[in-house]
């Protein structure tokens, strides 16, 4: 069998196209994101609350009396936010749980410093006292 030029050229072009197009649409994953998500706006109510909690603890002096846990909590929140933004939702949920546990520990330490919360007198007794005061 002999090849005719009319037959060869289309076949060569087809092969060249196959070889050229083989380089297009390679196996690269999609672009990543969330690597510095803590600097972006919060997109989740849970993280918003978590940040508020950290702010409150800071005001209450947690940076002085539970400094290491506060560092740990900030790192965990950062990590969770990054994971959430980066599509690692399960990991973010787990790290948020660890964050909450750390916050609980901080709360305990601050609570121990504050001492027991004073007991509130029952409303009925308070009212009775007030009424007695008015009568006197």
């Amino acid at each position, binding site marked *: 069998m002999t*090849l*005719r*030029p009319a037959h*060869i*050229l289309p*076949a*060569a*072009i087809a*092969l*060249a*196209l196959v*070889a*050229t*197009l*083989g*380089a*297009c649409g*390679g196996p*690269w*994953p*999609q*672009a*990543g*994101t*969330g*690597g*510095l*998500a803590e*600097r*972006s706006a919060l997109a989740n109510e849970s993280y918003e609350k978590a940040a508020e909690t950290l702010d409150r603890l800071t005001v209450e002096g947690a940076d002085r009396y*539970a*400094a*290491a*846990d*506060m*560092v740990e909590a*900030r*790192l*965990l929140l*950062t*990590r969770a936010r*990054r*994971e959430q*933004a*980066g*599509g*690692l*939702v*399960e*990991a973010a949920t*787990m*790290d948020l749980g660890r964050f909450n546990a750390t916050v609980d520990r901080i709360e305990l*330490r601050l609570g121990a410093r504050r001492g027991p919360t004073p007991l509130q007198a029952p409303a009925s007794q308070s009212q009775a006292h007030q009424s007695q005061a008015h009568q006197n």
Partner: protein
Amino acid sequence: MTLRSILLALCAVVLFVGAPRAADVTLRAGDILTVALPGEASLNKDFPVDRTGSIVLPEIGAVKVAGLELDKATAEIRTALGKAFRDLERLTVVLKERKLYVTVLGYVKTPGSVELPGDATMQQAIAAAGGLAQGAQLDRLQLRRGKEITTFDYKKYLDSGDLALLPALQPLDTIFVPASPLTGNVQIDFDGRTLAAAGDGAEERSSIKVFGEVNTPAIFAYKPDANVIDLLMRAGGVTRYAAVEQIRVINNGKPVVFNLQQYLDTGDAAFLPKIEPGSTIFVPKQVEEIRRGALTVYVMGEVAKPGAFEGKPGASFIEILANAGGPTRFADTRNIRIMHPDGKVDIFDLPKFTEVAGGRLPPIAAGDAIFVPEKTETNEPSWLKVPPNRAVQVMGAVGKPGRYEWSDEMSLFDLLAAAGGPGARADMAHIEILKSENDRARPIRFDLGSFIKNGGSMSQVPRISAGNVIMVPELPVDPADNKSQWTRQASDQSIYVMGQVGAPGRYAFNTNLHFLDIISAANGPTATADLRNVRVSHRNEPGAAVTKVNLARYFETGDESILPKVRPGDVIFVPDRNKEWLDEPAGDTVRVIGSVAKPGRYRFADNMTILDLLAEAGGPTGDAYQEKIVVVNLANGNEQARVFNLVGFAKTGDIKKLPVVRAGDTVYVPNAEQSEWKIFMGGVRDAVSILSLFALLAVR
């Protein structure tokens, strides 16, 4: 008879009596003769008989007359004068006067020859020689006459005035006054009173020795008529301490007791013992008489007035002790002993009775003896003075280790204070008390340091009893210095520090110390220490327990809660930062591979980004495909891959383009050969080659 005749008769009598009678007088040296021859001027004068017994006549010379009676002497003189004178009928020789020539030698003030009246006595002779000198032996004077020596007692004459006691003097006698032996062999000026006070006993054999409780003990010369009273008075009398009922008089080696009191009470001379030459009189010191009675209680030892006391029934111990003047400052009042007649002995602690309410005084009965011993010297005590049942031993690191007297009302603190307190190297957390009961020793450990620091009930302090041994151990020295010291340390009191610290080793540790104490004791971490990965192995807890300590975070935050609680027996390991990669857990690092300067595993913190990681890895190489850096997320269950366009990020600075990286992930920086353009161009080259091949085939 007329008045004239009476006066003539009286004159004759006077002349007869006044002049020595010629008939019975024998001439001697010292006599003075008057030789008279009328008309001859050279003879009418006195002629003394010289020491040779001669008189010296003019023109004649010496004529010996001594020893001749006066008549014979006159005839002798007449014969001698007849050689020079013719008419001697009227010659007369008269004995005009008699004198004594004697010599006084020895202890007189001016010894030498003296001229005395013819009837002079011994005393006159001594006086003519200036009197006796001090130190003369008065009872042993000598009269020497020719070769004959006569000893006489001049003192006796002085005492009595009896001239018969003195020998009569003759011309040419020599009186010798000897020196008393008390003057010794050296000539000194001495005080006569001192000599008299020392006695006058010149001869040891016959002198009387008086000593003991007399005011001036001395040796006195024996006198036959002197009795013991005389001798005692010569010795100045007895002192107030003399036992006058017990005076001893020893005659010829046989003692006789002389009761002076009895003699003075009765005046009976029969009680006076005989005094013989060489006797000894001793007056002993008064000794308390042993008193004994039905109610007598004896108090001895260190009290002001020890003795026997007559008690009344019901008299208490304190009353009796007070009557004895009370204990002296040297008394060991903790150990007063009450000895009963049956041999039983009770010990009474007086300070304890005064300090502890509800004490009971020991009953005292007649015949009991209270002995207050001397307390142990505090300067250099002899440990033998404290019996074992009253002593405790304190050893180890205290100021004054030793054996101390003990009383049960004292505490461990009293004892340690008495022993000078724990030393600078004392391990106060591990004080050991060894209690002995029934021949078995039982150790008790007490944490004194914790008790002092934290306080607590005094019931926690071990009670010390006599016989206990208190050991205050010493902290070991630097383990790097001398390991033989710290091997004495018990394992359960040690903690182990290993790895990157200045002085790894085994350290004494107690529950009062904490993590930083022991790290500091080991000279702290070294420059290459990996502070983020310090590990503490708790060996005394059930199972295996390891605490990871991020010491760097502690230094960053100062949060003490990071520091683990360490206990004796734990092991602290400070790893090296440059450790083997196998030691690093995979989940703690990010793997950076591909086209970077330093591929490897890098520790990654959650506040870091991929940029930090690439920088740590030395950055992408020149052939890196920086537009497609791949991040593979593997941790926490999610697995995904994302790419990071470093070039694009650098151009825009869009932080949203930074991918998530966590510890445990992998970062891959591909080579530029793997870029899509390169692959496309490769495909183009391949297509051109295919087309060229087909074109060549078509031309043929």
